[in-house]
């Protein structure tokens, strides 16, 4: 049976007075791809950002409930979000490389975590770029600015950058929404590879993508997790009317 890596329990989140997540309880299996789908504004990104405590940087955001990584509740008192994030990579909707060289982008995370030896960094950079299927395209321009890469290359660079911290979990928030079909296909293939070593949670608006790449799918609506289960089951025999409406495109 599946191993549960992350578990949320009665997670509630408010931006100011507005509640954005309502009582979310879910279990994310390890070494699988879990997709979060749902209409715009339903709280997918917000939920995703709970897994690495990125919501902490938002001024008026308040959270109740727990998120367990294994036995550890990352929202417990006294836990340093900076430490949590070292174990969780994140890829954002828009490619956001630093205005630095390709090499320095990928080496950023390891350096922050205290790896300085050139030999180790070289190895990590090469490995991460390989894993992100970008090495062949950039191996001869590692010292050039990352801003000069194409959008699809930039996004794979961001994936490489996230892999370089050797995380357990990778969070992706609509990673393909600004890419063309070819770049998208590359990144989808990549995800299949990634799940051998990582647990991937991906937010997507693209239902075909969710069906293609993910093992588990959660459907969210207005801050609630309406249904969660194996992707096949969600897409072929949803238990909830709302889910069915959404995936069949009959949505009011």
């Amino acid at each position, binding site marked *: 049976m599946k191993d549960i890596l992350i578990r949320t329990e009665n997670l509630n989140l408010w931006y100011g007075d507005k509640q954005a997540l309502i009582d979310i309880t879910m279990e994310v299996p390890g070494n699988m791809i879990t997709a979060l789908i749902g209409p715009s504004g339903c709280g997918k990104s917000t939920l995703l950002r709970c897994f690495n405590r990125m919501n902490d940087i938002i*001024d008026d955001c308040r959270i109740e409930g727990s998120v367990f990584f294994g036995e550890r509740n990352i929202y417990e008192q006294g836990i340093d979000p*900076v430490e949590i994030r070292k174990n969780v990579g994140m890829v954002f909707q*828009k490619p956001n490389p630093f205005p630095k060289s390709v090499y320095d982008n990928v080496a950023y995370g390891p350096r922050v975590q205290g790896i300085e030896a050139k030999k180790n960094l070289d190895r990590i950079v090469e490995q991460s770029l390989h894993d992100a299927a970008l090495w062949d395209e950039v191996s001869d321009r590692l010292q050039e600015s990352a*801003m000069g890469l194409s959008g699809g290359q930039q996004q794979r660079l961001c994936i490489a950058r*996230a892999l370089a911290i050797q995380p357990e979990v990778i969070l992706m928030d609509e990673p393909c929404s600004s890419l063309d079909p070819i770049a998208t296909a590359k990144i989808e293939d990549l995800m299949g590879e990634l799940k051998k070593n990582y647990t991937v949670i991906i937010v997507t608006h693209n239902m075909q993508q969710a069906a293609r790449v993910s093992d588990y799918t959660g459907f969210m609506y207005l801050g609630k997790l309406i249904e969660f289960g194996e992707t096949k089951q969600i897409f072929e025999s949803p238990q909830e009317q709302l889910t069915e409406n959404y995936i069949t495109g009959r949505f009011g």
Partner: protein
Amino acid sequence: MMPRDAAGLRMRKEAVSSRGMQALALGISVLFLVMLLLLLAKSRPLLSGYSLTEVLLSSHWDPARGQFGFAPVILGTFYVTFIAMLIAVPVSLLCAVYLSEYAPGRVRRMFSSFIGVLAGIPSVVFGICALLVFVPLVADYIGPWVGVETTGLCILTAGLILAVMVFPIAISLSYESLQALPIELREASLSMGATRWETTRKVLFKAAGPGMLSAILLGFGRAFGETMAVAMVVGGKNQMPSLFAAGQTLPSLIVSSVGEMMSLPLEQSALVFVALFLFVVVTVFNLLARWVEKRLQARWKI
């Protein structure tokens, strides 16, 4: 469909008003040139009597005897500006970082409008405050502390008040260049387990670097040309600058001599030359600020 004449009238109005505004803009640029030419022309009497190097390098200033050496004032100006920048640069950058990266929204909004207000305060008010605070501070505490006797009307005091006057422009411009950076840049860094300070130091400083450098250069221009506040506390003595001694700067030389200006034609020309010098240096720094920002942005592909 609009009636024909009405449409024609609108177009003519549009044409006339855009011409008019164009003419105004042109007029302003011409004004700048006219000022430059005027200053050049009126400096001629001095420059025909003395060589440029003589005027710039000689340290003897005695208009009555026909001695016009600007070295002490030029050095004095750089001296006070340097002191001001030494204090203002780190303080302003850290302040901007705090405001942009650490302060909660409420504090940020309050403080940034406060900075705006500060920038609009007339410099004579800063001068008065310097007389009330910095002069006694330097005379009674800093001077004795380092073992120097001073009246407090000196180069150091002028540098201190200039630092305060540079804060608003340097803080608000570097704050703006930080705020202009996309939130995604910070999130990328934070998501890899960097602290806020690491994010600021390793990512934001570089990305906002061109804007910050430009803020510093503009602050330099501001300090270099500041007149009133400096004239009130610098002591007004035309001698080689030294930290605790009375000194003189280019702008303060003009205000303190402007009364006598009418009597000696050559002195008048000398003061116009000082104005020309200021005009050129400050203009160069302003242009440099813009150029550096553009160049660095292009170079770093930000």
